[in-house]
């Protein structure tokens, strides 16, 4: 018989911390739901949320009530306008207090909203953790157990895969270097503590250097993430249209708007990688820039394999029309050669007097497509364009996007923690006893381990025995 030794120790008591996750990634409508669950989430929400009505106090609100307001950043500036729902235990999905934040902005505001929840002390949920809590708290019925397990398995496996994907290339190089340096720092300290006869006091100069190198690696790693160049794969964007339609102008505008342009990605040459910019927090690689730069007309190259490939590789293609020339045969040819699902039509030069393209004409030619009217010169229609690009990205990546954001944030959070430990270790070097220093170094190593799910304990020991001659 199943022996129930600790029925009184209810499972519920086990997890008392507050978690946050993106529960619905923003769909085409651009609405995403950020959800927090745990004993203290209403309090946490109150810290980062400003209701429209200053009289409203969400901590006093009953369950299932909605409040409109803003999520504020650390300086009290609005990040996004949101609809906030408070649900009180046990009447919520997880059976705990839950706060749901309906954001509308794009990916970036959602990410920032998640970030704010983390700032308030919530931790990013493990894959499937909401579902697990829901089950353990009795909110899901017994016959749903297997389905719950399926969800958890699927999410964790997918999450792991995503984490691995995101840690490829340069990022994995930074990570390896960082791991190696930190493990060594840890080994230096632990060897001195556990083998005082053989190792003696640590060489503080060496330790400082190793820690500094660790800090450099972690900063580089974080910066790479900030640029978005590596964390998320982003999208590939192509711009096409007949000569003089305004392709280079648009390109320059997009690039000019985005100050964080990356042109010197180490290890890649400039002409291969093209320009990478971010649009609403999404890294966007603009393809075949060189081609546009040289004002080589794509049209002329239609039929040339390379250009076609370029367009085929793109996730989003902006097809430019010139309002002053009307829709020409050339336009139609180009249009016919592009897969429509990825197309955005931008009718350019709307600032000009003579408009040869009517709404009706557009409707007839590109009825089902996204059509934007604007002027690169006057910078109109750009917001719409960006919004359109973002929506297409979200569609493309589907529900994975939410997990990607979560994985990214989880990694970033662990990295930041690791960095803080390293900084603290550097500051307290020689000021505190070795064992206190070890708390920081160890913390840094552990935080790093969370990124890849590794435990470094054995590696530290290996390193000790490899570096130091120990033994009687």
């Amino acid at each position: 018989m199943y022996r129930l030794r600790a029925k009184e120790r209810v499972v519920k008591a086990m997890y008392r911390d507050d978690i946050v996750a993106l529960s619905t990634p923003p769909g085409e409508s651009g609405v995403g739901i950020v959800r927090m669950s745990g004993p203290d989430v209403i309090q946490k929400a109150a810290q980062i949320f400003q209701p429209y009505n200053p009289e409203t106090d969400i901590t006093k609100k009953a369950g299932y009530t909605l409040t409109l307001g803003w999520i504020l950043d650390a300086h009290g500036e609005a990040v996004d306008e949101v609809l906030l729902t408070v649900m009180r235990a046990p009447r919520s999905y997880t059976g705990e207090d839950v706060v749901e934040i309906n954001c509308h902005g794009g990916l970036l505001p959602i990410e920032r909203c998640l970030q704010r929840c983390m700032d308030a002390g919530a931790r990013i949920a493990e894959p499937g953790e909401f579902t697990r809590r829901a089950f353990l708290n009795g909110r899901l019925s017994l016959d749903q157990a297997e389905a719950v397990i399926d969800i958890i398995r699927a999410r964790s496996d997918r999450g792991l895969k995503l984490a691995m994907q995101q840690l490829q290339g340069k990022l994995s190089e930074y990570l390896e270097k960082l791991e190696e340096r930190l493990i060594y720092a840890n080994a230096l300290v632990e060897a001195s503590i556990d083998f005082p006869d053989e190792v003696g006091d640590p060489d503080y100069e060496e330790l400082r250097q190793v820690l500094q190198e660790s800090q450099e690696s972690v900063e580089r790693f974080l910066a790479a993430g900030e640029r978005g160049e590596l964390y998320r794969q982003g999208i590939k964007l192509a711009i096409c249209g007949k000569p003089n339609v305004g392709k280079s102008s648009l390109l320059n505008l997009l690039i000019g708007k985005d100050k964080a342009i990356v042109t010197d990605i180490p290890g890649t040459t400039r002409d291969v990688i093209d320009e990478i910019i971010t649009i609403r927090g999404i890294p966007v690689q603009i393809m075949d820039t060189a081609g546009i730069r040289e004002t080589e007309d794509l049209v002329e190259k239609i039929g040339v394999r390379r250009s076609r490939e370029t367009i085929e590789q793109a996730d989003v293609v902006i097809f430019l029309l010139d309002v002053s020339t009307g829709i020409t045969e050339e336009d139609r040819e180009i249009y016919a050669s592009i897969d429509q699902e990825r197309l955005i039509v931008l009718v350019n030069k709307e600032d000009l007097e003579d408009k040869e393209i009517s709404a009706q004409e557009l409707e007839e030619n590109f009825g089902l497509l996204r059509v934007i009217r604007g002027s690169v010169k006057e910078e109109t229609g750009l917001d719409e364009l960006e919004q359109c690009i973002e929506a297409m990205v979200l569609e493309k990546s589907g529900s994975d996007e939410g997990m990607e954001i979560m994985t990214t944030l989880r990694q970033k959070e662990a990295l930041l923690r690791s960095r803080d430990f390293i900084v603290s270790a550097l500051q307290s070097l020689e000021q505190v006893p070795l064992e206190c220093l070890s708390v920081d170094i160890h913390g840094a190593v552990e935080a790093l381990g969370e990124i890849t799910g590794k435990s470094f304990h054995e590696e530290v020991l290996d390193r000790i025995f490899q570096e130091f001659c120990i033994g009687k």
Partner: protein
Amino acid sequence: MIYEAGKYDVIVIGAGHAGCEAALAAARMGVQTLLITLNIDTIALMPCNPSIGGPAKAQLVREIDALGGEMGIMIDKANIQIRMINTAKGPAVQALRAQIDKKEYQKEMTKTLLDQENLDLLMGEAVAVETDDRGVSAIITRTGARFECGAVVITSGTYLQGRIIIGDVVYDGGPGNQYPATELSQSLKKLGLSMGRFKTGTPPRIDRKSVDFSKMIEQPGDEEPYCFSFMSDPPDREQLSCWLTHSTTETHAIVRANLDRAPMFTGVIQGKGPRYCPSFEDKVVHFANRDAHQLFIEPEGRDTDEMYIQGLNTSLPEDVQVQVLYSIPGLENVKMIRTGYAIEYDYVVPSQLKPSLECMKVEGLFTAGQINGTSGYEEAAAQGLIAGINAALKVKGQPPFTLLRSESYIGVLIDDLITKELHEPYRLLTSRAEYRLLLRQDNADLRLTEKGREIGLVSDERWNRFLAKKSKIEALRNTLQQLTVTPADDTISKFLRARKSAPIRDRISLWELLRRPEVKIENFVELDYIDQYEKEILDQVEIQAKYEGYINKQREQVQRFEKLENKPIPEDINYQDVYGLSSEAKQNLQEIRPVSIGQASRIGGVSPADISVLLIYLEKKRRNYEHEYGN
């Protein structure tokens, strides 16, 4: 011929460091105990280094002591030198180390065993363990005695199929030319236990009279030595010194020239040796760029001229060992008394054990000490104590006694042994403990005496001593937290100026002031703010104040940790039935059979998703149970 020799509650096989603690604990808990060992003259023999303690190991001894074990008291009686090491590295990694008079230690332990009520001693070799359907039922000795019993604790050290190796000379034997136990291993295998083979080694011993100490650096003991046991008072006896010398390039050349005769490299030695205790020939090969390795010359006792060479553990041929010795500064004319050797032995793969050290496969059979793949006297004694306690509890029909990683090094040691895969003899290190700042040698009594009292191992004398100490600590803490000083206070301002410490701005408690590194608790005594307390009280309170921030942080971590440790997994769980576990997790969980979700999470190949799956499975079971039997 087999004859019926009697009946005991608990039988302990082997009177090494593990066996002595096990036997004493069981007997003190009031069960009839027999301690059977190969040779009554070698009780509590220290076959290797003549020292006990050091980082992690000193903490173990203090924990054994707090629980009512014997090792600390023995050390305090038999030491010839005491040093506190790592003093500058922080209170939690500070560690006492004692040089021991080996013979005296044996004599004291033998006397203690003989004096112990409920405990009988017998010289003999256990050759078989018998079982019936309830588990262990009897043991049989080589001379035909059959003893019935309720529980058995095997602490056979390095004796199982022991094999001595010196160069190309190889013979069956236990340490120090004791004879090996050749049959017990077989009997354990028959019971279904899986066994492995490890190797360890020891250096040659030399004659003090032939050593030139003028070429060495003296290492004296501490001037004001501490004690290991919370029951002892500071000793008043002469301390002996150790001596530091080193190997030379000539030494290394000799070793290199003879590697073709070194069993470590010729394949004669097959058992895996510990990396933290490599043979000297290993060091020469792996750290080829070093010109010298330090060597400590340590006395083996007060009344003997025999000395031990720490750092020179070897299984090189005897003639090479002699040449090696001559090449060491101060040993040019040395006389070797004992040859260094390596020993290979069988051990029980410890993942087959429960946290109580009972074998999962055989009810009532416990193993402890080096037989579980550990090395070191302290590790052995700690396990012996726990196994002895649990053997006694078993026959009394009471639930087992276990300790968590968060409350003791003993908990770390045993959890590591039963949870992780063992690749080499296991030695405890402070870096193996997650909550090192809490597991200090100075607070072992505060952590564990109450538990020792509950199981009945803490005598009234120890208990009263403990209560008095605890209330003094409380009183002093309160005083420091309540007493405040202000900037207007001349005494304190003058004192701070003299110490080059920043002046205070507001009213501040002495407790807070104590956090400043340059302020010592003795200063408050000198300034007449507080009474003179015993040093251990002052030390204790000072540590609590100075490291409060770090300590509180670890306490928080411990709370999280313990939630998972306190979530039990039923013993009869069948992992094959658990839907959704990865196959690797299934296999490892099935093999190690963790007792809690916490332990499960430390098993290799078990991912967080597997833990979630397990939690859901348990909850499902709980609800089914509730459904069937009501609340």
